[in-house]
């Protein structure tokens, strides 16, 4: 177990390093001139002279050769320094730390909601005896996955908040203001989960142990919850990392639509003003979330997978 964990951790660090490198390559090597963008990104500067450009180059260490810049920045990133925002002059790590709690509240609620919705639809779909209901339930995920998030958000605002006056459409105070954004963000994720659950439930029913359990007199509901559901959660775990990343990325749209604060909103504005250090910090944050989620899965996996626990060996 110890060696298994060490290897996983090492891999995680490698992935993070590579993600940092990719984002550096994208933002600092591509045709757009990072310096011009930065010099103009300050907002009120009306004329960008060559001296100003040189000053910006020196300020951000952009006058050094690329390899040197890369090593400098990577070294700084290792000590937790992701640079300074061009727009506000704030440290990128401080900016993210300040905005992250609001986004975590949103994504965590959305994740929980997605799990609830996804499993409810899949279980109900697997269990109902009415074909039409089953058909409807099983086609819901496809609908959820096809609707643009921003559109769903606008529809919810229009109906639930403005027309029926049930919940607030804006702000980030109290749980009421969290419901609509969390629901909007949860829908696509719940669609993925429902599809995964439904498929593994179907597969699980064909497994011999289910037949055995049924033969021993267990009720279908009991079999579903005790055996099949547990088994069905394994495939869902493998997409957990991707879903966490998607929730984080989805917050860009959802926080914009609902005028909420958070890293998503910061992302949208940073892209608009081309605030390169902040964008890079956010990309790295996305990779960190993905890697942490996968590490968590690696930790949980041995406890859930019967083959891993009974066989004593790690199969992955």
């Amino acid at each position: 177990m110890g060696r298994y964990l060490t290897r996983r951790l090492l891999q995680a660090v490698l992935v993070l390093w590579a993600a940092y490198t990719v984002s550096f390559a994208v933002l600092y090597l591509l045709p757009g001139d990072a310096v011009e963008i930065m010099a103009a990104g300050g907002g009120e500067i009306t004329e960008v002279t060559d001296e100003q450009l040189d000053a910006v180059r020196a300020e951000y260490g952009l006058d050094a050769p690329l390899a040197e810049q890369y090593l400098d920045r990577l070294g700084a990133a290792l000590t937790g320094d992701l640079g300074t925002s061009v727009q506000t002059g704030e440290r990128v790590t401080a900016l993210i730390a300040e905005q992250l709690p609001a986004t975590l509240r949103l994504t965590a609620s959305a994740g929980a909601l997605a799990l609830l919705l996804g499993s409810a639809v899949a279980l109900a779909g697997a269990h109902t005896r009415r074909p039409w209901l089953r058909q409807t339930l099983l086609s819901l995920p496809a609908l959820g996955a096809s609707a643009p998030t921003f559109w769903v958000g606008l529809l919810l605002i229009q109906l639930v908040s403005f027309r029926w006056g049930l919940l607030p459409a804006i702000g980030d105070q109290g749980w009421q203001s969290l419901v609509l954004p969390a629901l909007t963000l949860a829908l696509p994720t719940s669609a993925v989960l429902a599809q995964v659950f439904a498929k593994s439930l179907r597969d699980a029913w064909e497994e011999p142990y289910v037949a055995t359990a049924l033969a021993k007199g267990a009720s279908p509901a009991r079999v579903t919850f005790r055996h099949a559901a547990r088994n069905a959660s394994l495939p869902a775990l493998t997409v957990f990392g991707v879903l966490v990343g998607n929730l984080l990325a989805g917050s860009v749209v959802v926080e914009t639509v609902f005028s909420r604060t958070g890293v998503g909103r910061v992302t949208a504005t940073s892209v608009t003003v081309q605030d390169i250090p902040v964008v890079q910090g956010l990309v790295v944050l996305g990779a960190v979330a993905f890697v942490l989620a996968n590490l968590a899965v690696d930790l949980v996996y041995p406890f859930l997978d019967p083959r891993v626990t009974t066989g004593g060996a790690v199969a992955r």
Partner: protein
Amino acid sequence: MSLVERAPRAPHRAGSALRAVARAPGLLLSVVVLVLVAVAALAPSLLTGQDPLTGVPADKLLPPSAEHPFGTDQLGRDLLTRTVHGTGPTLRAALLAVAVGLIPGSLLGLLAGALGGAVDDLLMRFADVLLAIPGLLLSLALITALGFGTTRVAVAVGVVGVAGFARVMRAQVLRVRESAYVEAAHASGTRWSGVLLRHVLPGAWGPVAVFAAVEFGTVVLAISSLSFLGYGATPPQPEWGSLVAGGRDYLATSWWLTTLPGLTIALTVLAANRVARALDHETREAP
């Protein structure tokens, strides 16, 4: 499955596809939606006779009616016409995005699968890294560097798909490579590149096409999201995402401006996904 059996399969497949469509009304509907979308993209004037750019200012913000099924916008332009004419730019961007993912992605997957060893390891680790960055964030980083505009947005969205295509292609190459007929061809002295072109590629193509169909739905959503955030098309050219974005200022008064173009996006993606699922089913059933 042997080489001899492969030849007569095309008609059989077409026939079964037809039967499958007839069996599933949802699939039939999806095909109809996609055909309509294709017509709208290639010959928009077949579906609507009105001008997408010039409206009648006096007829602004009319709710849906027989004359204007989608209503009119703030300049009195027919919204259905704009949605239809917006299909071309939207679809072109989506196809470009799929191509940007498909071509380099499949090549990388092909190389990794065919060469194996260190090359395979390196390429697949690279794909893993791309998958570790949430897609939308990677696109946003690319847009920050490249700038705004529909084409750039399409490229930024497409790059995200590279890793997915590489994985699918590699898996197929590995599977096909180990199958009996390829081994036989290889053993009979055909050169490796020949085997790759004649046998591996055609065999691997099906699942890649399915993935491309799924990817199509994904990129339409991603492109419209980015257009919505304001990084896409320039006015007055209609494009689906920016149509919804343009309508949100009228959210409180004119629901149709956001609802109906949004519904068009949702239906198109739904249809593309449904067809992709049917294709997937087909390729799986035919081993």
